[in-house]
């Protein structure tokens, strides 16, 4: 059943190659069908699909547990929402279908080489999306970094093969790899995933790609970013439990500071949001690197809040940037969009009444309990800077005198979706448990490598 999540978008993409004019309806169909399948899969967690009937660790297997279920759920909903915007999607529906398949495959797979293949598809589709609106140079930068990361990921995978003797994640997790080898393997994986996860110093592509057109930030800052950060947790917590986490911690802290400072000095709205996205990824990575159940759970809680907020912010910002020459006071013309934007940016900063407050406050409390003061200090510093630039942007967009007199008709769909998601952010503040319960399960699943291994082994007994 879960294999359909990967295969259906693919077959729809192949059909779209036959008849180009059907590609948009096929995209909408495949995203709707995928969301339905994900909801139906809820009852079959945890389960393992053995592809071709070849039992692990010999064949490839897909693993659906609490963690991958949650990631797949978020990714498919994001793609469904993006698919609703016909104008924005434009010629890129086939690419989006392939990307949807790749995100699902990347999250579900239980095989290291298979995840490399899906990572490369993600990079290739990401490059194509980034090249929209003649954004070629930035797309090229992304291609170079992305395929360098792919090479390192492949090298790490083959290194694991020489040590373990198979490419299976569960087997790699079970096998005691020698100290000397695992350090190199984890560092290479850190480089390999670091590009997609926006880790310093591999995030030079982000501002150009997110700030270059109206489609790539919507998908890449949300679904792809979630998948990459999920994989970080999967590899570094479940598979290679405990190694290279201190390196990840330090790099993540630098990522936060560098991202926030770059956002502060940025004059372009989309690029500001892109840098803020880097900083948020840093916060999530730093929390993951603490590898306690509470912190990992809060990391994914924070990531969920960030994904929702970023989706709204980019939805509004791309509309503004590509319709108005001068953004001063545009929210006077688009009050609903403006409200959604303000709510989301408040949530990003972490004001009380909005979701971001819950995740940031809980993280701080948790870190104080374990008397680690470096991360809280960086987090508070980041919050202050976020406050500065997001309030500045809000003031500029709401209150400054209008310079661009032209008025674009209010986009009803965009306004509806962004205001619903913004209200959801308030809802999460009031009842944080609707997100915290699943993310606690995610953290449990990621940290419990024994039951991950047992699930995979059990799947080989059941079948042939």
């Amino acid at each position, binding site marked *: 059943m879960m294999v359909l999540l990967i295969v259906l978008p693919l077959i729809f993409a192949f059909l779209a190659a036959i008849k180009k004019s059907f590609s948009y309806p096929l995209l909408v169909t495949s995203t709707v069908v995928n969301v339905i399948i994900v909801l139906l899969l809820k009852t079959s967690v945890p389960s393992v699909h053995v592809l*071709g009937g070849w039992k692990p660790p010999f064949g490839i297997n897909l693993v659906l547990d609490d963690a991958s279920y949650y990631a797949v759920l978020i990714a498919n909903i994001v793609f469904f929402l993006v698919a609703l915007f016909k104008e924005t999607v434009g010629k890129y529906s086939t690419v989006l279908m*392939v990307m949807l398949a790749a995100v699902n495959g990347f999250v579900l797979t239980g095989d290291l080489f*298979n995840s490399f293949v899906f990572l490369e598809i993600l990079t290739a589709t990401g490059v194509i999306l980034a090249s929209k609106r003649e954004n070629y140079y930035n797309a090229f930068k992304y291609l170079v970094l992305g395929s360098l990361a792919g090479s390192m990921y492949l090298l790490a995978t083959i290194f694991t093969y020489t*040590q373990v003797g198979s490419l299976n994640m569960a087997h790699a997790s079970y096998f005691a790899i020698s100290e000397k080898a695992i350090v190199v393997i984890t560092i290479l994986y850190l480089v390999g995933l670091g590009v997609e996860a926006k880790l310093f110093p591999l995030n030079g592509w982000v501002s150009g790609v997110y700030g270059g057109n109206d489609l790539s930030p919507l998908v890449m800052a949300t679904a792809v970013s979630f998948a990459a950060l999920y994989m970080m947790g999967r590899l570094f917590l479940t598979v290679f439990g405990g190694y290279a986490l201190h390196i990840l911690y330090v790099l993540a802290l630098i990522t936060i500071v560098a991202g926030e400072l770059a956002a502060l000095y940025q004059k372009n709205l989309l690029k500001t949001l892109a840098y803020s996205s880097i900083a948020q990824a840093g916060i999530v990575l730093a929390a993951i690197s603490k590898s306690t159940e509470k912190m990992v759970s809060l990391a994914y809680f924070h990531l969920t809040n960030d994904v929702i907020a970023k989706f709204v912010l980019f939805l509004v910002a791309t509309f503004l940037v590509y319709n108005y020459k001068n953004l001063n006071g545009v929210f006077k013309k688009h009050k609903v969009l403006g409200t959604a934007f303000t709510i989301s940016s408040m949530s990003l900063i972490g004001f009380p009444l909005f979701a971001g407050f819950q995740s940031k406050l809980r993280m701080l409390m948790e870190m104080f309990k374990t008397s680690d003061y470096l991360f809280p200090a960086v987090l508070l510093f980041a919050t202050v800077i976020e406050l500065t630039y997001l309030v500045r942007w809000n003031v500029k967009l709401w209150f400054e005198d209008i310079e661009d007199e032209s008025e674009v008709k209010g986009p009803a769909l965009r306004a509806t979706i962004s205001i619903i998601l913004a209200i959801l952010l308030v809802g999460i503040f009031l009842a944080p448990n609707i997100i915290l319960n699943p993310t606690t399960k995610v953290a449990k699943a990621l940290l419990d490598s024994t039951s991950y291994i047992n699930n995979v082994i059990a799947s080989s007994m059941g079948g042939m």
Partner: protein
Amino acid sequence: MRRFYAILIAAALVYMLISFISTVPSYGKADLKERVSDAFLSKSVNAQNTKAWMEGKAIHRQPAKEIYGKKVKEEGSANVVTSIVVNYRSFDTLGEVTVLFTAALGVGLILGGSRRKQYGREANFVLKTSTGILVPLIIMFGAYIFVHGHLTPGGGFPGGTIIAMASLLLYLSDEKFFLSKASTGALEGSMGGTYVIIGLLGLAIGGYFLYNFLPNGVVGNLVSAGIVPLVYVAIGLKVGAELSGLVTDLHSEKEG
């Protein structure tokens, strides 16, 4: 200064890799018994016990099992690399086909050409005549390669690339030759669809995606190995169409 840092980073990376190399068995001394490949080579994946295998216990297989010219229940291709690529790890290959599909799609979207680019030079007599003779032979050779993918070295990807070379030759020898997007797109889409549908049939019949639901036959025969030749034919045609489309995109320009 930039060069200095670059040397530093590259040297650090090389040092790391070399320090890792000391943990790998030296060149030519790899022990396949510790790897999954042993089970692939002896076609005895089904006989393995995952848990025991992972614990490093003895591998369950008969020594010196006769394979060539015999019916092997598990897997039927004589070329073990093919049996891995299109059977044991077929899902990777589906991903691989998708990467190529994405690349062809992306090149089309980025370059956006819809008309043959004119270079204004005429191919000479030798090139034109030999193209006419060679193209059918090249296509036949490519088809031979992918039809025999489960028996000899080669398979869908090399076969498809050879076929694409035929269309490259046509592009070089004739300024007017132009493959329409619709035809290559239709072939590539339908062949990709065929691959997925074979996989879905396996899901419906055997309960596993890409399950081999056809009889394996005798190892070494042309008609053997179940779905493997079918998948390789689909891949061969798809790769041929895709790379021809890529060549087309590189030789076309925007209207007007």
